[in-house]
């Protein structure tokens, strides 16, 4: 079945073609556009399954490379590859994507820009799949940028809202900061290894030959070149995966439609950074991985803290995503590809589930996003509640749910990390906070009495139905087309973890290209059971704390202060304001950039332009001076000379009167004078 390797490019190209066709469709052709998008995604899903089967039977890396463009006598090559890592991602992206596409037909049903939505969504899916199968850092980067573009377009989908437009811009620019690091890392890698193909029959940049050559070079600050390149590439991942300090765009990205948040800003695109690090893992040496681990651990804790004090249902999930991405990075840093990737896959399912659930809640509550204004939804939306609960338990790491196994694997690796115990503690505290803020959210949204804020007494124009006035009605369950994907995802959120338990580490072995064995003895590894117990205790503690603060006494009024706010108002407000990171950036980086811009414009106008104008003025001045000289000195002098000559001539006309004898007289006198003069001279 090697044909699937050669035709692997079809998987990303099909959704892209669908996007191209959708772009040409007119707005009324909604059904056609949705059919195209979902159809292409289904075919891609089937192809991905075939590719997965192929990867199962041939775990070795299979590549297909093509020449793209020529410079001098060299070629820039692109290519795609199939290995277990790519296969797993392919299946996950196509499957989750397909479910979210289906869900979107319900969620976006009334949107006037329905076809455009599916155009962007398909383009996103195609580009994301391109990132997954790329066998060249260049191709990966290209698809990566297109993914960034679609993210930009979809965050700003409701472009008439200034907040959405600003958030879209912020997302694009923040991720681009990281991408520039990636770009430099990429050209550096190209310069060092002479190729950007990952695998190319022994001459690829991730293969032994290139890696050892890279490790031999020392660059500035005494760093090995491969560390420097690895860190630069990691910059790209930091931007895309919302790691500190470039995480600020991800919570704002929640301005986009909820399916977009689920697909792009939870399940797939933000995980692309993690995938990138996993893909170039051979490049990442111990020093680079140390940085990765620390950044991941810090992000995991930092974002979990902020999530505790948020009130927007999607923002809580967004910070949770940032935090979980931190866990993935931590897993990559301390444990290896399998540890990080396992969490990536499970997280994709349960976080997509949570976002879709949140979307369902928002849909049911007529665009309400503030959890203080919800409450008691358990009775109105039972399916959504059940699915949401499964997602929450999976995210918290409740024993036996998917998140439990993957997060536990990360904590276990962090515990065993030789360099520092710090990331482990960060991760453990993060896990406690995760359980706490999810419990808080669930109690706010689904329990207690229904709370309707006074502010909503007057109708608010919702972004998706600008024409209709929103009416205050009881929340309602979402249509079947939206709940079915929820249920499917909930099943995966509950049981997916069993493919990677210590007893049956199928997932880990698959990525490593080895056959998996079932061995109950996997649990008997020293410290493993104890650690699992500890992490379960942490989860129970978090949930218990949440129940104690928010569950045992129902929240009655939307305007009541938060339980935590009553306990510690100062820290709560700091956290609610996202620890003022945005404000700090505004005051430093952005202000600096603005200043630099104003300075450049000033430089342009007054220094460069001023110099030119100065020269122009000087030249013009010379011109005036010359004009004056011409007018008064040269011309005037000439005129005066002429006048003198003419006066002189007039004087002489008087002598020249035509009397011959006068002339003779003059001659005679002159002669006499001459004679006297000569005689005088002779004598003297």
């Amino acid at each position, binding site marked *: 079945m090697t044909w699937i390797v050669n035709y692997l490019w079809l998987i990303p190209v099909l959704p892209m073609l669908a996007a191209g066709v959708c772009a040409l469709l007119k707005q009324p052709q909604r059904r056609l556009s949705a059919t195209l998008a979902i159809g292409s995604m289904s075919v891609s899903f089937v192809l991905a399954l075939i590719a997965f089967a192929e990867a199962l039977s041939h775990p070795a890396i299979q590549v297909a490379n093509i020449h793209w463009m020529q410079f001098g006598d060299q070629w820039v090559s692109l290519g795609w590859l199939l290995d277990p890592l790519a296969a797993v991602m392919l299946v996950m992206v196509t499957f989750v994507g397909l479910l979210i596409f289906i869900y979107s037909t319900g969620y976006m049903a009334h949107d006037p820009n329905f076809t455009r939505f599916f155009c962007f969504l398909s383009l996103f899916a195609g580009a994301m799949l391109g990132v997954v199968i790329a066998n060249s850092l260049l191709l990966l980067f290209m698809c990566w940028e297109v993914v960034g573009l679609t993210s930009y377009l979809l965050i700003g989908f409701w472009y008439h809202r200034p907040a959405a437009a600003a958030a879209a811009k912020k997302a694009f620019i923040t991720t681009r900061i990281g991408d520039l690091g990636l770009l430099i890392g990429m050209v550096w890698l190209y310069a060092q290894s002479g190729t950007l193909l990952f695998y190319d029959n022994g001459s690829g940049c991730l293969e032994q030959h290139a890696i050892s050559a890279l490790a031999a070079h020392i660059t500035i600050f005494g760093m090995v070149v491969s560390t420097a390149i690895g860190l630069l590439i990691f910059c790209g991942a930091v931007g895309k995966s919302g790691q500190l300090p470039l995480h600020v765009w991800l919570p704002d990205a929640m301005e986009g439609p909820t399916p977009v948040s689920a697909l792009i800003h939870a399940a797939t695109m933000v995980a692309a950074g993690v995938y990138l690090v996993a893909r170039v893992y051979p490049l990442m040496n111990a020093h680079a991985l140390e940085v990765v681990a620390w950044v991941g651990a810090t992000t995991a804790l930092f974002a979990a803290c902020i999530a505790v004090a948020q009130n927007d249902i999607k923002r809580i999930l967004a910070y949770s995503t940032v935090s979980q991405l931190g866990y993935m990075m931590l897993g990559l840093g301390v444990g290896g590809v399998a540890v990080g990737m396992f969490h990536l896959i499970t997280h994709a399912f349960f976080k997509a589930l949570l976002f879709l659930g949140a979307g369902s809640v928002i849909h049911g509550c007529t665009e309400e996003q503030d959890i203080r204004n919800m409450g008691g939804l358990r009775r109105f939306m039972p399916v959504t509640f059940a699915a949401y609960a499964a997602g929450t338990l999976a995210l918290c790491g409740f024993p036996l749910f998917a998140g439990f196994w993957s997060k536990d694997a990360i904590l276990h690796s962090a515990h065993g990390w030789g360099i520092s115990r710090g990331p482990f503690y960060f991760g453990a505290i993060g896990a406690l906070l995760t359980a706490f803020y999810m419990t808080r959210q669930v109690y706010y949204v689904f329990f207690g009495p229904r709370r309707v804020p006074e502010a909503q007494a007057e109708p608010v124009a919702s972004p998706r139905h600008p024409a209709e006035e929103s009416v205050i009605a009881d929340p309602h369950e979402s249509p079947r087309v939206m709940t079915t994907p929820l249920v499917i995802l909930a099943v995966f959120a509950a049981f997916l973890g069993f493919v990677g338990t210590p007893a049956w580490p199928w997932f880990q072995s698959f990525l490593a290209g080895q056959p998996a064995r079932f061995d109950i003895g996997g649990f008997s590894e020293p410290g493993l059971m104890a650690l699992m117990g500890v992490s379960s205790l942490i989860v129970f503690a978090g949930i218990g704390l949440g129940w104690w603060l928010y569950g045992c006494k129902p929240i009655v009024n939307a305007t009541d202060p938060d339980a935590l706010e009553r306990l510690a108002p100062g820290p709560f407000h700091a956290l609610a304001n996202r620890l003022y990171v945005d404000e700090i950036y505004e005051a430093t980086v952005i202000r600096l950039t603005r200043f630099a811009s104003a300075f450049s414009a000033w430089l342009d106008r007054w220094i460069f332009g001023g110099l030119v104008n100065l020269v122009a003025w000087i030249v013009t001045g010379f011109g005036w001076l010359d004009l004056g000289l011409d007018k008064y000195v040269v011309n005037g002098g000439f005129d005066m000379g002429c006048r003198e000559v003419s006066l002189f001539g007039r004087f002489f006309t008087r002598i020249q*009167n*035509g*009397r*011959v*004898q006068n002339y*003779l007289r003059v001659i*005679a006198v002159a002669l006499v004078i001459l004679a006297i003069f000569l005689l005088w001279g002779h004598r003297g």
Partner: protein
Amino acid sequence: MNPLAGCLLVSALLFAIGLAGAITRRSAILVLAGIELMLSAANLNFIAFWRFGPHPEALTGLIFVIFSIAVAAAEAAVGLALILAIYRHAKTSDVSEIGEMRG
């Protein structure tokens, strides 16, 4: 007084008379006669300097004088013709009357 000085004295006298005539007389013919006198004075000088000069064997002065006399003759002829033409035109031969060349 050596012979050269005598000759020169005569010649100077002759020149002075000619000049005085040319300046003072009104009749154009007399003016012409004055000029002829000055010319003769010059010729006399030529002869004198030739005769009493360092190379009397080289006949230069004599040749000059002969040329001069020939030219003077021609000049007199042309001058008289001019005076006649002017006289015919202006009905006078008084040089103080003939101030302008315009006809």
